[in-house]
Every structure is written in structure tokens, then in C-alpha cells.
């Protein structure tokens, strides 16, 4: 489990605390510029932040890089590539902390529907395909804590739903998955949501308890209305 206390990044994140148990699917919500990416980066130890981050009671940011890479995997919002590595090689980079043993690489490729693109250069993929490559790399690490920054943006409907299903599968295997999202409807089926507004945490808990019409209006500036809706899901 991961617990963060009073994570603070000047001007971007104001003393945010959170606690996620093992086997949990959680979402960070909030409008643009609310601090979602900063929170995920701070948790992953990728930017200097005040406060504490503990993994199973241990200060996560004092764990050496290689060991830390076996605990958490992070996927950034940018999925830009300058160098044309083949897809398989990029996914295999997920095994860096394990001496490049190549384990789980094929499974990760298959999980993100990339097997047929395995030999293509990442520079010759579409934005959504490239995003899936980076997600597959994170999956290949087998890390029990997955921090994904807007994994579903740039993805088509089907692949977006698959990502969510995959996250659910990871959770079932005992992983903790925390992702930032813009899709408030998708967030309804998460175990836990955390709403950020101007860097501060304005709500945390089960989605139906947190995402009240009042909060949605105040934070996102939208009026919520429950109605008959078009439901899209993966065919069984």
C-alpha cells in the first residue's frame, strides 16, 4: 500500500495526502492545471516535493532507483518519441531493473494490442498507438504500483475501455493502480477517486460519495444530470 502525507510542490500542489490499499483502482480527477500530473510525478519521486511518500511503511523516495523501479511504474502524459526504437525494444525497457530478462514483454504487447506492431519504429506510430507502447512498458515491469497519467487520452473508445479493463485486472491481481482521468463517467466504476482543484485536494473517497453535483459544479463548472445515456462497453 502507498500513503502520501502533505505532498507539497510550490505553486502546483498544496499539501495533498492520500492512502491507497493493495488491490485498489483509484483515479485522480480535476480540470486542466489542477495538479494531477504533478501529484503522480511527486508520488513516483520524479520531481522534488515536500512531504512524505511511504510504500509499505518505507520512505519510497529513499529507495534506490533500481529497487524503486521494481515497486512502481509511471507513464507520463507525453508520448513523444525522437528516436525510432522498435516497439518491442521499448516495451522490453520495462525490464531494465531486472537485468533485461525480457519476462512479460510478449504478454504486455498482447495486452495492449501491439503484437502486430512489435517490429515497427515507435516514431512511425500514431499518438494513440505510442501511448499504448508506453503503457505496455509500464505493464512489463510487473510493478505492484502503477501510476498512469491520462492513459486513455488519444486512445480510441475501444482501446480506452481495454485500458480500464486491464487496470481492473491488475487490481484483481493485487496491484494498486492510480491514474489521472478526464472521463468522469469512467471514474464512477473506480474504487476510489481523488479530486484536485488548484493544487489542493477537495474530495477523496468512493466516487458516488465524492462526485456530488455541487462538487462537479464548483470544480469542473459543469451541471450533472443523470439521464438515459449511450453506454459503450467491450463485447463479452
Amino acid at each position, binding site marked *: 500500500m502507498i500513503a502520501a502525507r502533505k505532498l507539497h510542490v510550490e505553486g502546483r500542489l498544496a499539501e495533498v495526502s492520500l492512502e491507497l490499499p493493495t488491490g485498489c483502482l483509484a483515479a485522480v480527477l480535476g480540470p486542466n492545471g489542477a495538479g494531477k500530473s504533478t501529484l503522480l510525478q511527486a508520488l*513516483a519521486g520524479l520531481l522534488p516535493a515536500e512531504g512524505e511518500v511511504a510504500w509499505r511503511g518505507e520512505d519510497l523516495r529513499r529507495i534506490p532507483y533500481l529497487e524503486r523501479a521494481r515497486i512502481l511504474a509511471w507513464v507520463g502524459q507525453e508520448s513523444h518519441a*525522437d*528516436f525510432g526504437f522498435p516497439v518491442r525494444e521499448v516495451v522490453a*525497457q520495462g525490464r*531494465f531493473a531486472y537485468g533485461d530478462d525480457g519476462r512479460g514483454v510478449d504478454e504486455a504487447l498482447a495486452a495492449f494490442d501491439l503484437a502486430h506492431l512489435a517490429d515497427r519504429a515507435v516514431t512511425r506510430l500514431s499518438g494513440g498507438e505510442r501511448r499504448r507502447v508506453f503503457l505496455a512498458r509500464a505493464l512489463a515491469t510487473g510493478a505492484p504500483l502503477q501510476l498512469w497519467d491520462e492513459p486513455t487520452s488519444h486512445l480510441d473508445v475501444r482501446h480506452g475501455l481495454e485500458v480500464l479493463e486491464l487496470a481492473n485486472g491488475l487490481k484483481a491481481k493485487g496491484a494498486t493502480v492510480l491514474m489521472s482521468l478526464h472521463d468522469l463517467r469512467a471514474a464512477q466504476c473506480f474504487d476510489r477517486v481523488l479530486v484536485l482543484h488548484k493544487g489542493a485536494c477537495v474530495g477523496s473517497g468512493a466516487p458516488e460519495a465524492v462526485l456530488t453535483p455541487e462538487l462537479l459544479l464548483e470544480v469542473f463548472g459543469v451541471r450533472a444530470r443523470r439521464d438515459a445515456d449511450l453506454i459503450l462497453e467491450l463485447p463479452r
Partner: protein
Amino acid sequence: MSGRGLALLLALLALALLAALVFGEVRLAPGEIWDVLNGHGDATARTILLDFRLPRALVAMAVGAALACSGVLMQSFFRNPLASPGLLGVSSGGALGAVLAFAFGWASTSLWALPLASIAGAFLATVAVIALAREGASTEHLLLAGVALNALFGAGTSFVLTLKAGHFEEGGQILFWLMGGLESRTWEHVWISLPGVVLACLLVLPSARALNLLAMGEQGAQSLGVNVRRLRWELILLSTVLTALATAVGGVVGFVGLIVPHLLRLAFGPDHRRLLPLSMLGGAAFVLACDLVARTMPGQLRLGVVTALAGGPFFLWMLKRGGRS
């Protein structure tokens, strides 16, 4: 794939080295060369082979390997395939350092003064480029910073030379430092450059895997277990030292750090575990070949002119393609 590329480039390098020993102003029969290599031969042939052609070839290889390797490292550091020691002004900084060492007589105090001064100048340039264009900087940003630094350091070099060098020497010296050249290279130049270059190249190789990760993004690399801060320091240090050593013995030789890694990436992919050793071999063979052209063509082309003639059009083509490999 990797083995084939390595074998191909080793063969190319061996061929270039052989050509560098065989061809020159004075025609030596294969028998004479064989005699000299076996420790016999007449004095003139010995001097030509062992004191002219061999040290010059070794310096050419050191310069080529250093510049190509340095180019790969800078491209990783800036995550931009157009970054290279010549374009970013690091070579010019090294040349200014070397020229200062000459002008103030430090160069004659110790064998190490010249390369050290060159390294200091190159670091000045590197620090300036990093300040002007951060990692992942746009191509325009990098190139503009490079243009400014090249002009600045080039002017400094010319100024110091006109100020200090003997009147008749100015022209030749400015030409040497600004356009690169390998004429009159001796064993001393081999000792200045080759051991350092070999050492730095060996130190680079273990980082190849981490460089692959870095190439796909800095934060991603760190989250996967790369100590990015340390790696970036290593990159700066080694690429600058390599460029400086090359510049200290060969002047500003442009485009090697750009063309060689780029062509090898096109042929063998961007994996640094292959790219780094291949670039070292390829750079050495490329500069050897260019120097052979420079010294055997009529009209005394300069090495820097030959590499620029080969590299300039190539660079423009890359720029037009958007610099992606």
C-alpha cells in the same frame, strides 16, 4: 545484425587504415611497406610510414571515433538527432582553449596543458549550450545557440591568433584551428589524443542500455531505474572530453558527430548497445577516409573542408526531413 554491422565496420576501418598507409605523396611499393612493417626497410620508407603516415592515421582514427561517439552522446543528452559537437560550438570552444594554451605558452610546459586547455574551452561551450537550450530543446533553439557560440568562439580564436602568433604564421594557424587538419601530426599528438579517447569510449559503453531508456524520455527512464542525474553528468563529461581531445589534435572538424551516428542509426537502428561501438568504428573510418582524400587530392583540401563537403548537403537533407531518424 549487430555482429554483421560490427564486422562490416571493422573491415571498413581496416581497409581505410591500409589505404592511409599505402597511399601518399611518395609511392611506396607493397614490398617496401611489408619490409618496414617487419622492422626492415630503408630509412626514408621507415620515416614515411612510421613517422608520417602511421601517427597521422592513428590521430585521424582517434579524432573520428571521439567525434562520432561524442555526437551520439550529445544526441542522447539533448534528445535531438541534430545535436553534435561541431554544430553546438563545443568543438569551437575546444579550439579556443587550445589556441589560448598555445598563445600563452602553456602548451610547451607540459604535454597535458594543451588537451586540458581544450577540455576547459569545450566545457565552457557545453555549459553555455546547456544554459541556452535545455534538454529536449527544439532544433531551432539548439542550432541558434550553436550558431552564436561557433561565431563567438571562432572570433575569439582568430583574435588570439592575430594577437599572438608570428605574422606569417597567422593564416596557417587560423586555418588549422577553424577548419581542422591533420598535417604534421606526430607521435606526440597520438599520445595526447588516443589513450584518452580509448578510455572515454570504454567508459561510455556500459551506459548504452541506460541511454536507450533516456532516449525515450527522461522521467520514464528514471522511473524504470536509471539514475538520470548521474547519467546526464556522465554524458556531459565524456562527450565534452571526447570532443576536446579531438579538437586539441585536429582543430574543428565538423559534421563527423552528425553524419556517422545518423547513417549508422538508419542502417542498424537506434539501439545504443550497437550504435556506440559502431559509431566509434565508423567515425574512425570516416575521418581516415576523409583525410586520405584531403591529402591525396590535388589542391591540398583541408580535412575540415572535406568533412564539411560531405556533411553539409547531408545535414541540409536531414534538416529538410525534420531531423528524425
